[in-house]
């Protein structure tokens, strides 16, 4: 499955099913089980029927009527004002990714406590784990 067509073309896997949704929704929209199911059925059908190595099946789902989300991808909101204050704002880091660190990033402090006591069952470290 993929939502990043250009990257998948470059990586060139044996088969792929492309869903043209914002990243973070490769398998559907949150809470929409019928859509998730349809996407997976179409994906399995692509898996079953693609005969040409490297073929990418484009599934016909659309995220929203106007596709305006595509304007904002990797282009964090810019201010439209033209004052000096906004110039400073527009010089903010245009990278909306979070800081890269070797500290595990738990969804909640409770998860961290649970991991401390459980000893990380099913965790496989291929390099030394963070201290």
């Amino acid at each position, binding site marked *: *499955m993929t*939502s*990043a*067509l*250009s*990257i998948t073309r*470059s*990586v*060139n*896997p*044996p088969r792929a099913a492309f869903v*043209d949704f914002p*990243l*973070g*929704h*490769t*398998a*559907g*929209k*949150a*809470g929409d*089980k019928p859509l*998730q*199911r349809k996407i*997976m059925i179409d994906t*399995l059908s692509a*898996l*079953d029927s693609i005969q040409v*190595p*490297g073929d990418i099946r484009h599934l016909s789902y*659309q995220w929203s009527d106007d*596709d305006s989300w*595509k304007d904002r*991808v*990797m*282009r964090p909101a810019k201010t439209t004002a033209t004052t000096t204050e906004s110039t400073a704002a527009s010089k903010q880091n*245009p*990278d909306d990714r*979070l*800081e*890269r*660190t*070797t500290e*595990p*990033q*738990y*969804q*909640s402090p409770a*998860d961290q406590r*649970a*991991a401390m006591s*459980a000893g*990380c*069952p*099913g*965790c*496989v470290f*291929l*390099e030394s*784990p963070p201290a």
Partner: protein
Amino acid sequence: MSRPPVDYIERTRSQYQSLGYPPYQWVENKLAPPFVPLSKPLHESRVGLIASGGIYRVGQMAFHFKDDVSYREIDTDAPMSELRISHFAYDTADARRDPNVVFPLQTLRELAHVSRIRELASKAYTFMGGIYSARKVRSLLAPALADRMVRDEVDVVVLVPV
């Protein structure tokens, strides 16, 4: 109105340029990919699931954000309510609300229930795909996961990147 897909390679190139970073080297595989025809119909197949959206289960260590090449085994009968997400490079709000959007575990369980597939393997595997070292993925993570697929005797694998 439908518009062309986002060209993430081009947008990454311009973002890196504006940040003063050297250009990111995307993986490019120009040779025809290895292609294995399905050995049996899907309704007779055991299906593996591998996802890169940073999913872990409560009790497991979360991923870190700097070339973390570890992976997690998650029982495919795990309750969805015990799944969590950590990832630095996409908006995780919807995935945290409904992990099926990046880890379609319940979706595949239900398709097994109605015999679209024979079954899910007993374990799914997850990692956090923001690994900027393609070398580490190629030499460490991908072979380890491929080995798990062989040991789990799956017939097909659904790969879910973000």
